[in-house]
């Protein structure tokens, strides 16, 4: 089969994503319109009479038939306008852009934590399959995925903040004593480092630890299992046996050849894990008063804030596509075989 260039691959991936983005737009639109709350009533506020509700309905364009509303919506979208959130009165795009870094920072740190714990566990389990270590790894990681995230979160808050006072107050991204660093990337940790403000950096890390662990625990299992499986396969393969037969030290065989080859499938899982984490953020953010897009989505959903819900889902979907694209590219870079259609 033909070898394709990387840019062609990227282009093809984007094209593949296009129909699902269209699908997402339609589904999201219909879903928000099916929400039971009447935004006009909600936003007319207390003591509103029928007149003012009708006024608001007209000003929102909600008095028009559904297909017209959809055409307007798509038209706005094409101009890069996600509309304006009714409840906050801010453009949805601005709000999502300002909140997205909070979610991403949290998710990335959670991912790092998850990898740091799960990868060694997976390798360990694979080197001694079906031993008690393997079983223990399995129990630990499965336990992590067996608890509702909000429960884990509140439990951690209770123990590490409320009882022990080890963790900082779960009041969002920074303790009140600190001002957020000048926004460059939107990641407080990185921005603080860029500004050379170590104190703020540690404060931001401190706020991140509990929510990141909460989120990370939930994804230990997939990463550990993937690693274990991939390692087993790698270790069972011809070249490893050859390497062993050649008398190379076990450690070197396992870590260099085994892990080196097992990394590929693990990387592909990471994309899925990341997207999955972004979805689970919704619950963790609520517990830790984290001003990310997950909490924004709950708020919007409860208020039947159409534009905000649509904007959120669309952002998530695009993010998903981007993450998978990135994974593909990373994959291409570490594996020369990729690029061959197979």
């Amino acid at each position, binding site marked *: 089969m033909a070898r394709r260039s990387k840019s062609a691959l990227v282009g093809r991936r984007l094209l593949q994503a296009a129909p699902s983005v269209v699908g997402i737009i339609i589904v999201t639109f219909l879903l928000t319109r099916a929400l039971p709350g009447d935004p006009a*009533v909600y936003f007319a506020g207390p003591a509103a009479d029928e007149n003012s509700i009708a006024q608001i309905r007209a000003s929102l364009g909600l008095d028009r038939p559904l297909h017209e509303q959809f055409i307007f919506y798509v038209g706005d979208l094409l101009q890069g306008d996600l509309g304006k959130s009714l409840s906050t009165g801010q453009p949805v795009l601005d709000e999502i852009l300002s909140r997205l870094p909070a979610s991403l920072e949290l998710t990335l740190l959670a991912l790092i934590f998850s990898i740091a714990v799960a990868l060694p566990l997976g390798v360990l389990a694979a080197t001694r399959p079906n031993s008690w270590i393997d079983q223990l790894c399995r129990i630990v990681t499965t336990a992590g995925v067996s608890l509702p995230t909000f429960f884990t979160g509140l439990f951690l808050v209770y123990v590490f903040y409320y009882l022990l006072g080890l963790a900082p107050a779960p009041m969002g991204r920074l303790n009140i004593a600190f001002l957020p660093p000048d926004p460059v990337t939107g990641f407080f940790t990185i921005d603080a480092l860029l500004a050379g403000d170590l104190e703020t950096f540690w404060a931001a890390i*401190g706020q991140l630890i509990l929510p990141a662990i909460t989120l990370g625990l939930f994804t230990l299992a997939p990463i550990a299992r993937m690693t274990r499986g991939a390692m087993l396969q790698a270790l069972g393969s011809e070249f490893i046996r050859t390497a062993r037969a050649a008398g190379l030290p076990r450690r070197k065989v396992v870590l260099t050849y085994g892990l080196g080859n097992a990394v590929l499938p693990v990387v592909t899982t990471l994309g899925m894990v990341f997207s999955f984490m972004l979805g689970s953020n919704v619950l963790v953010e609520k517990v830790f008063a984290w001003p990310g897009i997950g909490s924004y989505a709950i708020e919007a959903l409860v208020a039947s804030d159409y534009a905000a819900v649509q904007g959120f889902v669309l952002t998530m979907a695009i993010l998903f596509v981007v993450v998978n694209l990135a994974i593909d590219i990373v994959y291409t870079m570490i594996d020369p075989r990729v690029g061959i259609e197979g």
Partner: protein
Amino acid sequence: MDRRQFLKTTGTVAAGAGVMPLFSMLPAEAAPKGVLVVISGETINSMDIHRKGTNRPSYVNAVNLYDRLIEFGVKKKPDGSFTYDYSKLVPGIAESWEIAKDGMSVTFKIRKNAVFWDGSPVTANDVKWSFDRAVSVGGFPSTQMKAGSLEKPEQFVVVDAKTFTIKFLRKSKLTLPDLAVPVPMIINSKVAKKHATAKDPWATEYLHRNPAGSGPFKLERWNPGQQVVYARNEKWTQGPVPAIKRIILREVPSQATRRALLERGDAHMAFPVALKDANELKSKKNLKVIGTPIENCMYIVGLNFKFKPFQDKKVRQAVAWAIPYEEIFKNAAYGRGVPMWGGKATKPETIEWPQPFPYKTDLDKAKALLAQTDYKDGFEVPLSINLGLSDWTEPTALLIQEGLAKIGIKASIEKIPGATWRTASLVEKRLAFHLETFGGWLNYPDYYFFWAYLKGHLFNSSNYHNPEIEKLVSETLYLEVDDPAYAPKIKRMLEIAFDDLPRIPLWQPFDDIAMQKNVEGYTYFFHRQLVAANIKLT
């Protein structure tokens, strides 16, 4: 990354984790002096109370960032806590005011030294522009102004730069108090007009994000969905400069987290406080809870006349006799409120409002009443509750469900999300059996009845219609309380409500706010917003 390098990096992380508690140990007391940290479960969505879609928690901005012509006074209660004084109006931007001889207008003298944040003087033009705006934008602000018979821009007259007159449409006891509610705030019209457009003549876009006021606090920072930060207005002239330099209003959506923050001393004040937490936090060493019965407000059970069985008065009364009030008060309200059941007489002796209705739990009476109706074998009915208020609605509903089961009425509980609730309960008025709450800002029974007992009015979620009540309300709404005709009419109104029971009151809720012991000066207001200018840290 080789192994050694990796170890080195993890070493730093570990060291960082070790240092972390140092940073975490910055409880509110240790926060910079003069800073007040307030946590809230609600989101502030606008700086402008006149805007469409501004939610209730945002009224705090109208209260603290803006001034009004006049304000309510403050009085100390016997227990040492403070409450606003409905009977006393004190100067705000206006230093004095006078009612015309014919009683058909009032003229305000504006303080000579009153200035907006930008240093420009507050003039009668600003007042007129602000009032014109409030009555013209429609929606909630206009409705609230209307309650005080403030309906048309023509009523508001600029006499000169520092003199302002309001012409009355009718004599009403509600007009002056209505000038002290958050809505008629005074906006810097020069700033606002600069940002007005043909499409948006009232600069709602601009003022939504950028307040332009003269109030005791200025907006320092607003991160929507996260926090609002106020800095005090050092040049405030309408009263003593606030004791607090900076106020941080942080959003903390999880109730459990809010409680943890308060107990650990990381926040000075929290609201809303769950009923159970309010009950328990008051006995904590470092905390106090101030609970004030919310004026003119009750938690009620609504019986909808659209639902056939509830059209029979005896059925409604049977329900009232079957509700387990005591248990509800103990397990759902945690005692945080004033009981509204067990009244002595079926005819009210006073015009005090709210006052207990003459019902208590008496299953025999309930059964006897039900037996006289077409529904002696009971019936099924969905009992709807507002998810947004599940703190009290859920346990209450469960107990009512159990109580009614004893007389053969099968209620099934239906939780409705907050956004849908308003539409279902108040606008469409389609909930057969529901838990509802309403509190009137202006503290008169006729005002409550106006909203909750008149046909088609918003809070009449029962679809109740009684011509006599309609007549009584229209006769008393504008009448002065000391008018001899007032009391008898109100008593008659209450008597009908007692007997007819479109709404069965449960209890009058408390406005509960939990705070550190060193927070002084919290004052209860009918709008239940934090009036930060009164707060001190000791």
